[in-house]
């Protein structure tokens, strides 16, 4: 049985405001040491690769060294990004509230070792989108795309300073991102033959808190018809056009709803129905487009699909949150950008995998479902379907 790299979270969400305020400065010594150790690991990598290619496994000494680098990296970044409170031990010694377990050395296919860097590329790119971000360059073009982790840290910094506590959703998302990054690093560094799995359940998150906008997504057989996978983008184009037109109509509806909710303290039922249909159709199309669902969705959101969002009936909303809704939604919008980035990577690679194998990897599907749910909650919050803030962390139900 091939064992995987697992993230283990025992963090209690409590944060010291003082260390949060100075977090970047406090993390500097660790970042320097980690940089030196990671540099040494990179220099050693060709030797390790050659030895592993000959032996069919990584020697124990090298395995331990690389395992320590990965564990230490998780500790340091968990601390830097506010995923944990205590100052981490050097070189991954001892335990930490956001920790990672690395399986012992094992035999690996030489083919897989030989092409490891190439094979790891999609996982590393996805890890970049979830983690620190990506840097793109060409002769005339530079672009830096922030990943989910720095955005989480940026938002969490304010939240922790204000409340002395890390929001659970942000912590869970960070743990998930770090866990995936650890898997990708371990795979690239030949610590495990197991390909990184983007399934949020591997980070063992708690169940999602109750939310008026919830995702229904039972497990499916993951089989995908290659013809429909190949045509997925063009098949969704009419939906995109339709949704764009619908959104144009929705803008004045939301404005009217906003005024009504300001006066009455709730969204009128007719507007709620109209906007619910929009949010459901968006989610259904998003799920279909990202290959999380195999069933072609309708255009009106009227039918319940296997992958669908449930929207609770209109509820009273505090008027001040209605008044400031767009401003309040800004952090979630910011985070949604990073989640979209990760979703796009997973969609891109998932498309190729599904085209070749006729199957959607369960991890990619779960990541898509998480993104679908988060975006539905965000749009629902923006258009006043609910006063409940979108839950940013992945949950057990995102499967």
């Amino acid at each position, binding site marked *: 049985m091939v064992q995987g790299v697992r993230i283990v979270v025992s963090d209690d969400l409590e944060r010291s405001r003082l260390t949060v305020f100075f977090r970047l400065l406090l993390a500097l010594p660790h970042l320097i040491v980690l940089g030196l150790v990671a540099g040494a690991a990179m220099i050693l990598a060709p030797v390790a690769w050659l030895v592993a290619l000959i032996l069919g496994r990584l020697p124990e000494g090298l395995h331990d060294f690389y395992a320590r680098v990965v564990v230490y990296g998780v500790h340091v970044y968990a601390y830097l990004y506010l995923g944990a409170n205590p100052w981490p031990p050097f070189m991954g010694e001892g335990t930490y509230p956001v920790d990672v377990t690395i399986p012992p050395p094992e035999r690996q296919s030489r083919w897989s070792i030989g092409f490891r860097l190439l094979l790891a590329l999609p996982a590393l790119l996805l890890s970049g989108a979830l983690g620190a971000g990506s840097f793109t360059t060409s002769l005339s073009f530079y672009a830096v795309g922030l990943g989910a982790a720095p955005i989480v840290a940026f938002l969490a910094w304010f939240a922790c300073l204000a409340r002395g506590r890390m929001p659970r959703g942000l912590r869970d998302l960070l743990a998930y991102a770090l866990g995936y990054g650890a898997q990708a690093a371990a795979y690239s560094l030949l610590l495990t033959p197991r390909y990184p799995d983007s399934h949020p359940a591997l980070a063992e998150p708690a169940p999602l808190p109750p939310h008026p906008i919830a995702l229904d997504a039972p497990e499916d057989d993951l089989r995908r*018809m290659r*013809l*429909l996978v*190949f*045509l997925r*983008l*063009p*098949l969704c*184009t*009419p939906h995109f*056009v339709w949704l764009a037109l619908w959104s144009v109509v929705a803008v004045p509806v939301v404005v009217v709803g906003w005024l009504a909710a300001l006066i009455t303290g709730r969204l009128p039922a007719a507007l709620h129905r109209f906007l619910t249909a929009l949010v459901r159709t968006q989610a259904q199309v998003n799920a279909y487009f990202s290959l999380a669902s*195999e*069933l*072609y*969705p*309708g*255009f009106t959101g*009227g*039918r319940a*699909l296997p992958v669908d969002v449930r929207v609770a009936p209109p509820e009273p909303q505090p008027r001040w949150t209605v008044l400031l809704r767009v401003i309040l939604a800004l952090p979630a919008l910011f985070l949604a950008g990073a989640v979209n980035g990760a979703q796009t990577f997973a969609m891109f690679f998932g498309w190729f995998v599904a085209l070749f194998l006729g199957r959607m990897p369960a991890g990619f599907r779960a990541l898509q479902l998480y993104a679908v749910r988060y975006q539905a909650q965000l749009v629902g919050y923006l258009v006043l379907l609910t006063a409940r803030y979108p839950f940013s962390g992945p949950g057990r139900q995102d499967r």
Partner: protein
Amino acid sequence: MRRALSILGVLLLGAAVAWAAIALWDTTVPGDLKLPALDPADHFESGALREAESYTRFSIVVFLLAQVAAIAVLFVYVRRGPGLMRKSAAGPLGTGFFLGMVGTGLVWMAQLPFEIAELAWARDHDIVRTNYLELILGGWLGLGGRFVGVCVTLAVAMGLAKLVRNAWWVPAAIAFALVTLVLAFVAPLLLSGLEKPSPALRQAAERIAAKEGVHDVPLRVQPIRDLTPTPNAYAVGLGPTRKVVLWDTITFFPPREVRTAIAHEYGHQARHHILKEVIWYLLIALPSGLVLALVLRRRGGIARPEAIPLALLVFTLVSLAALPVRSAVSRHYEAEADWEALQVTRNPGAFAALFRDFARVGADDPDPPGWFHWLADDHPSALERIAMARAWAERNGKVVP
């Protein structure tokens, strides 16, 4: 009684279509004009002629194979397509869209190898400079636009079939003609990268337009030489959006030939050919819709999604059957625009030279096989055009080119 009324209605409609077709066929080309029989060898170099013949022969084979592939795929799709309904949760209308799009996608995939072969052939003859990735990726991405068109078309047809049942094809044909009219109107507004012509070219165009009685129709130049060296020009738009566009590849031709090309395109505008072609579209859509409706009745009508694969097949066959009519109409109007150009420029030598150059640079067979010319050529052949120039010259006492 109802059946008799329906038949009577169809007969009346048929008579109206025939009357409109006769009216639209009216042309300024003299009815007694006899085109002389010409030998291509007298007008084209033998090497260029051989190359053009070989190029066209291959293109014809590829065209025919692509049609056969499309029909074969659709035959299979008629049997197996309805099984895909289990992959849709979009209701009858949405499932109809879904089956329509998948069928269209399958036809594209079946025809793609032939498109690639044609591109290879065209590249080999330096007719186009697009690469294979552009063809494949552009085609795949372009399916999105085509699918939107499929959905709109099916929404109209299926929606009307629910409203007026078996007579859906009449309002549907009118609706599609209206859509075509709107598209013809907005098409020039969607053209990007058009440039203003040089002052000399603009003045020449204004003089020609005035002679043809066309006002406020600007001339524009489209940079295209990075994609193809072949020359072309076209007239677009309706009413205030009308334009005449020259590819920049033609602006390198001798000025007298460029003026002839401009006069030809202003001839299209003067004779309202774009509007007439929209009306022809309606005249062809009506009987095509009738055939479609009659065939689909066996499958419960076009409103049922399971009938859509058959609808695609019948539509493809009817379109192929209507191809000679569409080609004949197009050739007829092209000939009229040729005549207008000759009347305005009064230079049959330049006219003949222009189409000799067109055939040479575009590797166009000046005298293609008669059956193919009848089936699918939407322009007169270069030899026919030279023959018209000669006929015009003889009538007007000019030097015969």
